[in-house]
């Protein structure tokens, strides 16, 4: 049970950390100033959530661990984030599309985690849900405007949606850790979230005049530590300074 809780905490924390790191790449490169600020804000929200969760993971692992040690001194196979979050950002439409698919899931997940029997996870959820609700609204509004925008924006965002679709299923595929956490009243019921997710996605894709991809085959592995080749590049950029100067202080 302790082992499962530790891995569950890392999964939540790594999702926030890796997505925050990916989104931070947009800082200074947004299509307009306002969106540059918006996305950097969202990146910082995720980093804040990652800190709380990795801190909790460090507490569970024992005294020699800290949030920084966990973030900067683990290798690819020790990361437990969803694969979709480590993929390259692509163009603005692809970034929005990934945000929408994940934010919608994350919103239902954290809504359920508000009832978690684990006190720390529950209090992280109470703080994070306000941010996550905004993220989900923001990316849905954007998807509607890109999908129902110009011919070019529609075509590009539809093609991103088709590309990303096979990476969406991992969010809802429970494994032994998810099941143990559900049973303990700590984690969320991914099957129930899947239904709510599909309802919401159908509703927004309809408004966005986008077609829902039909593919049913889904990628998996990130939660268990099997990653794409992209994660190595994310970690290299994120970790190289602390690894060069492990004792460095601000």
């Amino acid at each position, binding site marked *: 049970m302790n082992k499962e809780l530790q891995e569950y905490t890392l999964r939540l924390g790594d999702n926030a950390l890796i997505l925050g790191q990916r989104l931070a790449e947009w800082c200074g490169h947004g299509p*307009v*100033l*306002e969106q540059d600020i*918006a996305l950097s804000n969202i990146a910082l929200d995720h980093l804040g959530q990652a800190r709380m969760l990795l801190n909790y993971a460090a507490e569970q692992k024992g005294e020699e661990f800290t949030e920084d040690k966990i973030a900067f001194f683990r290798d690819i196979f020790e990361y437990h984030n969803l694969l979709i979050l480590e993929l390259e950002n692509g163009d603005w439409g692809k970034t929005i599309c990934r945000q929408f698919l994940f934010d919608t899931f994350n919103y239902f997940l954290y809504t359920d985690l508000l009832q978690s029997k684990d006190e720390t996870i529950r209090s992280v959820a109470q703080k994070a849900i306000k941010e996550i609700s*905004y993220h989900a*609204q923001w990316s849905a*509004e954007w998807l509607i405007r890109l999908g129902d925008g110009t011919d070019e924006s529609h075509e590009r965002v539809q093609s991103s949606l088709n590309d990303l679709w096979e990476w969406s299923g991992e969010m809802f595929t429970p494994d032994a850790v998810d099941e143990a956490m559900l049973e303990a009243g700590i984690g969320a019921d991914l099957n129930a979230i899947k239904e709510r997710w599909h309802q919401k996605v159908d509703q927004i894709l309809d408004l966005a005049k986008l077609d829902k991809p039909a593919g049913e085959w889904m990628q998996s592995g990130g939660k268990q530590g099997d990653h794409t080749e992209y994660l190595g590049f994310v970690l290299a950029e994120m970790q190289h300074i602390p690894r060069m100067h492990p004792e460095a202080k601000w």
Partner: protein
Amino acid sequence: MSTKDNWKIWEVFIRSRNGLNHKHVGSLHAPDAEMAVKNARDVYTRRSEGISIWVVPSDAVTASSPDESEPLFTPADDKVYRHPTFYEIPDEIGHM
């Protein structure tokens, strides 16, 4: 996306506390009113500056012309009696 062609400019007004007026804080680009509110939230209230946001399309603002500033504003300059400072305020009222 050519933002200059299809994104309007919006004027942003923020109410910082209950009981205060919305105050003009600046302007921004957005494709429509709802996104303008979201952009305003991100650009102007990141440091807890506000509890309410108004956005108005900039082209809906009618401004006075600088050429008219003399007839509009200078006549008020020598009419200090329009300030309510010529009354004795009884002590019991305190600060007004």
